[in-house]
């Protein structure tokens, strides 16, 4: 699985993207975010408050309960501020 990070999520995690092997028990976005948070360091800081984090799966906005699998492209970021 490919994971992208943007804006301050990227800054806190410390990388803009990574290849990631999805653990078997991680089946949706919320579980993935909590798993990443448990890795500690920058991840722990970036995912400390899931209420301020948005996610996309395969380049579509999704909710926290969106199911994911190994071949998906996932991204985490704060609410968008373009325009």
């Amino acid at each position: 699985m490919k994971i992208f990070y943007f804006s301050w999520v990227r800054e806190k995690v410390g990388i803009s993207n990574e290849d990631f092997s999805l653990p078997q028990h991680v089946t949706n976005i919320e579980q993935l975010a909590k798993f990443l948070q448990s890795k500690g360091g920058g991840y722990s800081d970036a995912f400390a408050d899931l209420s301020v984090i948005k996610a996309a799966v395969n380049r579509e906005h999704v909710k926290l309960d969106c199911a994911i699998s190994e071949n998906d492209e996932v991204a985490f970021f704060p609410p968008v501020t373009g325009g």
Partner: protein
Amino acid sequence: MIKVQQKDFDYGFEVSALSKGNHSVGGVCAFRGLVRDMVGNKQINNLSLEHYPGMTEKCLSEIEAEAHRRWLLEKTLIIHRYGLLKPGDQIVLVAVSSAHRDAAFEACRFMIDYLKTEAPFWKLESTAENSQWVEAKDKDKQAHSRWLNNLKKDK
């Protein structure tokens, strides 16, 4: 048409292209967004725009397609820049041509409202002291919801 680019664009040329050679066009509505130098009482030195390549293009194309589903339009255009911008620079252009002005206005506002809450862009504002990620505005979320309500009413 959508364009996601770092370089600047020629506003007059781009808007004119929406009606060029098409005499069915009665009105063109265009919105141009620019970098402001003051936000609250902070003096902005520059603005850095990050985006999610691939998702940005997908998202803007969907917004454009939805506008064409909702209104009878001739052409639509969204240009959004990324990278380092300074006060006075153009950030975004949304423009719509149509036979009638109501459709042009509505669709143009719909597209910029949706873009503001859906397109994956993030602004980092730099002052002389520091750099801060811009926070999403409730106002923009409300502008977006207005169109969801309209959709329900239509049904």
